[in-house]
């Protein structure tokens, strides 16, 4: 079974096909940026992109993502280390407090902007509705995703 994460392909024994993606990312690959908040798929802290679609890593088995492209928060940064525009927007708009929901929020926002470069604030709120944040009241997170949109026009 081939599991491709952030452009790198890992060969995983078939016996592990029922292993959970979140645990694999965190414990096997040490990609600890993806967080565990509820483990039942309702808080969104573990959202990663699977073929550009937001998925909850706590609810995915390895066999469900084999052969697909998985993108985690660690893979979003440019090769030169520069922040991705959506990451920069989260920094610039004061969207980060404790930061625990942020990887999931950034990935969910990124998935939205790949589809729709200029969503309305209502569309943004709908897109992140399955991502819980207890610190920010969401306003500055919506600001950040809204502001990052124009950077996707060139991609």
């Amino acid at each position, binding site marked *: 079974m081939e599991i491709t994460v952030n452009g790198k392909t890992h060969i995983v024994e078939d016996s592990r096909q029922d292993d959970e993606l979140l645990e694999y990312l965190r414990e096997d690959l040490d990609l600890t940026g993806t967080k565990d908040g509820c483990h039942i798929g309702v808080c969104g802290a573990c959202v990663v992109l699977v073929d550009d679609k937001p998925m909850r890593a706590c609810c995915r088995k390895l066999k469900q993502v084999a052969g697909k492209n998985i993108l985690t928060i660690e893979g979003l940064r440019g090769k030169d280390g520069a922040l991705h525009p959506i990451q920069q927007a989260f920094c610039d708009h004061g969207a980060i407090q404790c930061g625990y929901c942020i990887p999931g929020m950034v990935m969910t926002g990124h998935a939205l902007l790949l589809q729709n470069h200029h969503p309305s604030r209502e569309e943004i709120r709908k897109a992140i509705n399955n991502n819980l944040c207890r*610190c920010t009241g969401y306003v500055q997170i919506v600001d950040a995703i809204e502001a990052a949109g124009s950077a996707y026009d060139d991609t």
Partner: protein
Amino acid sequence: MTEKAWRNDAVAKVTGRAKYADDYKFHNMLHVVPVYTGAISAIIRGIHTETAKTMPGVVRVVTAEDVPGCPVFGQIQRDYRILAYDRIRMEGDVVALVVAETRRQALEAAKAVTCDLEPLPCIFDPEESFHSDFLIHPDKETNIINHHKVRTGDAQKAFEECAFVLEEEFRTSSQEHGYIEPEASVANPCDDGVIRIYGSMQHPFVARRFSACVLGEPLSNVEVFTIPVGGGFGGKDDTASIVAARAALCARLTDRPCKLTYTREWSMKESYKRHAYKVYYKMGVKADGHIHACDITVYADGGAYCSVTPWVTWRSTVQCCGPYCVPNVHCDVYGMHTNNVFAGAFRGFGSPQMNYVVEQMVEKAAEKLGMDEIDFRKLNMVRQGSTTITQQVLDNHTVSMGQVLDTTLEKIGYFEKRKNNTYGKLNENGEYYGIGVAMSYRGMSLGAEGMDMCAAIINCQYDGSIIIETGIHENGQGSESAMMLTAAEYLGVDLKRIRYRRSSTSSIPDSGTTVASRGTIMGTSATVLAAKKIKAQMASVLCHELECAPEDIVFADDRLTAPNGKSLTWNEAMTKMFFKREHVYAQATFKAPEVSWDEETGHGNAYFTWVYGCQAAEIAINPKTGKIRLINAAATHDVGKAVNPAFLKGQICGGMAQGFGYGTCEDIGLHEGHVTNANFNKYKMPRASELPDFIVTIVENPDPMSESRAKGIGEPALELMAPATANAIYHATGTRYQSLPMIIAPQK
């Protein structure tokens, strides 16, 4: 937004590099899993670990018998069983810790630990507990954790002088903090004999106290580090410390690193909540509109253990009449033991409950009197020089109650919009509509509840870089950035020179808990004092070079400048200091100004300064679903000085969201002591599509009681949305909801 937001940890947090407790791994690390019994109230006759000990990967099964120190600790009363051995008093009590090579092995073996339990009676209602003969802690001789009073004037006599007296009952709910990161701690026993702890917490010093107690070792043997924490809101004090202590215990017993990471369900079952209150409130009003007397009785559900119940309920006592002047007050607040999950610190700390009550009482009184609800507030509210119900004169800072009230009303358009209140009649949209307001004052920091001091260290390097640290913990609120900005401002240097050193319990003196909205006021004040010491040291040495009196040197724009025009860049100054064998280093402590309290009369200068806030909520209710839609909400807060405006706004928005959840949907759902909604599928918290773009206004009246002139915002931001929403619901439906959360039944 005109200016980009800045905080020192943003890049780490937005790239996934920030390492939270569960992200730490050490060689040879073991995994720890707690064992619960499922019981609520029982005598423990035996704990059977034999089977579990033989299971694959199990290294040790730890019970209270294995504790080298004392298994009982607490911040005020020592009653919390870090491992239960005598009784089960609540669902979340832990009787054993299974330590295994992998987490899965530990989870499996935990199922094999069994207990012989002899059931005991249970008490779930705090008022019932007051009258019950069954003792939850037989050694305490009573279920009353504490009793606070206010005795001002003669309330009983004063009621006879009133035009009318209102008598009402209110109930508030048990709210879960809902931090997105569950508790976790990793303890590493090091070669120097010290156990080093990396945990999710907001009070490393308390975690150290719990750990040292359970280990039976001195504080110096335990070092707790500051690492990123995934939310606290007051909730990562006791329970987080208990988790740290358990990890430390297992690490000491096995001499291997041990990790204890909580699941959401364990966290919600075991961690303390906001106190549920039963409030009996009697308010007497004179014909001229003045509140003349209040008689208040409160039963606060402290649950199975004391935690900080005496402090939480003390704030309720001091603030039991809201921001209003009342000459006659008779108030009794009881913290009570029950067999519910214990209650402790939660953002607001005893004020959200009272604000919910008081801000509805004043509107009821105004209505009965036939007076405008805003005019009634203005007639009775505290002003410059007012005397509070505890006989404190508010004269050492700007009392801005009226200013924040007027600003909020204007920003949300209160007077125009209240014309559309429906009072139970559907509007043209087929909805009920209402707008409501609530205001409060709040004593800053700990007040007379505890020791209040904070340390800061500024350590200037010879290359011009500067390291600072404080005893305030970064809970996500942006405290490190606030300290850095303050240091840069007071030293007159470029912010880029400054690095914040994440302090540990061994690097900086014990500065107390990062709670009580005290981070900014205490931490920046200590930072200012340390900066003043640094400047004095540098000036005394470099004044000869600059040919002026030391006090005439100006520190600004990254240089030191004398009135004669001579100057040194910061780098030049640092090089000179080094060659003069001067360590440019300062430690300063900000001691909170004196406060006072008389427990018998409930009189005293309870807090050294106060903040003022007002929030408004505009709602629509769908009669078919009962769903409350928050259309708009506005907040105005006087914070003294805005240190980092973007994150000040973030604190306010987050507090409003948490306060709206408290008002409309959040309740831990205890059923006979069992937490019935132990994950976020059943415990509902506000989500993005349920909230508006909050309207936030900052008022700055620099506070002379703070060295930096800044005060705090964490808790004021939360404590007003539930009452503002309650008033909006009344204006929409014509019905008072006097129980939290306010659930509106769908109409058939």
